[in-house]
């Protein structure tokens, strides 16, 4: 889905900025920007506030009390109901699919990116591979889902977690390689050379030198892929049918279809699924945000 070349990436690289760029919008009071920013804050926060307070209301209270006022007596029954509906299983499924796809995707992408940086100048094969990956950025997953569905059926992996993991790895590769390539390029060549002089082979240099030196990029790419796969709805919708194979987004949708009248329970299910990501956001906000702009942030 991401269709950018490596060039603009350089232009928006997240390097330390001179402090005086703050003057761009600073200086005098800017009322327009101020007003718009507070309105936007309301637009973002009100729905989130509403789902949180409603998820701890009794269903009976929900229809009788003011929806914007927190409930007098909190209840976690809604959460209990959601968990009883099998959400632990769906959570575990999401975790398996996400980790199962992100780890190989990032490792394979790193190996490919390393090879491209080290030998694309001498290897025609790697140059072709590199341009194929770049072209792959323009292929929308939604549009190629029908053959993916057929392939997964043919591999006898329909309705299995592995059947979701394998395509997720494939879909993650182009952007991961692009971003990692840009970072590995910044490792001074002399470091590779001196390690080589000491008799290390490429495999050792790859894991002992390049990998640790580009760790921030690896983390960023992993986060981006993890978030994308964790939130994926389309793949499980197409590739699974059993209830016990659902991942969280699909489970949310099914739960909502079943309990649409019980608004507090539906919202509890939403809160429960976004809680882990929000927790991560609190801990690693910078990494998450740079992960999201991975394609152009660098």
């Amino acid at each position, binding site marked *: *889905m991401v*269709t950018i070349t490596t060039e603009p990436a350089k*232009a*928006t690289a*997240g390097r330390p*900025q*001179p402090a005086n*760029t*703050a003057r*761009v*919008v*600073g200086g005098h009071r800017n009322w327009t920007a101020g007003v718009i*920013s507070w309105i*936007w*804050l309301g637009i973002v926060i009100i*729905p989130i506030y509403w789902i949180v307070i409603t998820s701890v209301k009794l269903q009976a209270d*929900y229809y009788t009390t*003011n*929806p*914007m006022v927190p409930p007098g007596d909190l209840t976690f029954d809604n959460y209990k109901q959601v968990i009883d509906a099998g959400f632990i299983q769906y959570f575990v499924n999401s975790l398996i699919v996400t980790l199962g796809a992100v780890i190989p995707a990032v490792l394979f992408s790193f*190996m490919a990116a390393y*090879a*491209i940086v080290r*030998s694309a*100048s001498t290897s025609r*094969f790697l140059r072709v591979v590199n341009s194929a*990956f770049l072209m*792959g950025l323009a*292929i929308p997953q*939604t*549009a190629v*889902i*029908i053959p993916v*569905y*057929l*392939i997964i059926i043919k591999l006898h992996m329909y309705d299995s977690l592995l059947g979701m993991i394998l*395509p997720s790895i*494939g879909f993650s*590769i*182009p952007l991961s390689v692009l971003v990692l390539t840009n970072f590995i390029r910044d490792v*001074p060549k*002399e470091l590779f*050379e001196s390690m*080589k002089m000491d008799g290390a082979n490429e495999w050792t240099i790859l894991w002992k030198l390049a990998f640790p030196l580009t760790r921030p990029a690896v983390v960023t790419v992993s986060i981006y892929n993890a978030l994308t796969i964790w*939130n994926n*709805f*389309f793949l499980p919708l197409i590739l699974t049918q059993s209830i016990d194979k659902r991942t969280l*987004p*699909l489970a*949310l*949708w099914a739960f*909502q279809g079943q309990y*649409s*009248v019980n*608004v507090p329970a539906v*919202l509890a299910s*939403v809160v429960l699924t*976004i809680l882990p990501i*929000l927790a991560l956001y609190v801990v690693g906000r910078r990494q998450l945000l740079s992960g999201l702009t991975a394609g*152009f942030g660098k």
Partner: protein
Amino acid sequence: MTTAGTSPSRSAARGSRSGFLGWLAVPALVFFVGFLIIPLLGVLFLSFSSWDGISTNIRWTGLVSWKAVLANPELIHALWITFLIMLVSWLVQTPASLLLGVFLAGRQRYRAVLAVLYFIPLLLSSAAIAITYKALLDPNFGLGAGLGIPLLTQDWLGEPVLAFGTIIFVVSWQFIPFHSLIYQGGVRQIPASLYEAAELDGAGRIRKFFNITLPQLKYTIITSSTLMVVGSLVFFDLIFVLTEGGPGDATRVLALDMYKTGWQANLMGQAAAIATILVLVGLALALLLRRLGGRRYDTSQLEGV
């Protein structure tokens, strides 16, 4: 790209010894080819076949699926709705993201705090967002009914025009934070000296915005617009959960048309033809926007600095 300083003889020697490095790219290549390249060709191939999507009985039927798809007024309708969503969501999101991005580029403490809250929507899945809004906008059980405000108790997802507007709103809610983030990065790249020079010339804030910020952000705008336009082409989750293309077919975009044709009407051949159209339109748009951006990204922007 930046490091080209080593002696030619040494790098040539290394190159000849590290030819085997190509193998390192093989695992990534296998997954890439297996799940992106083969499917890309496969979608074209399947569009000339008939398949119900359930059995594995795929028959070669030539142009039958294409004829059916192209004769179906639903396709033109889906293309039109897709185009409208693309256009209107671009028109809404671009100015809003631009303004918010400029605002967030400032380094005041309270703006950093606001930014933390602003960026929350881009962490959430489309499914979670759609389900939240579906509950929130429900005419009987939603927020409007609870507050007793008639203006808010409309059948948001039941009237064609309202449903369209609601989708634009929810899409914007989800994606404006992301594009603000891009613009924030873009604005922070603009050299402060440009603004200082303009201030010496007595330029006010509005003139600075139009004469410096906007032209300097040209490539950021193109990047953001490309992502928006190509992204909105393949919107599925959000619309599927919110309206399932309804009411009637008022919000039935191409991706949804493909899904319904393939997995509900069991006409995979026709669905593949729709998917092929999706790929072609996406590529055409991406190329068009790239052409618009020109080839050199890193020179002209800094002229005269």
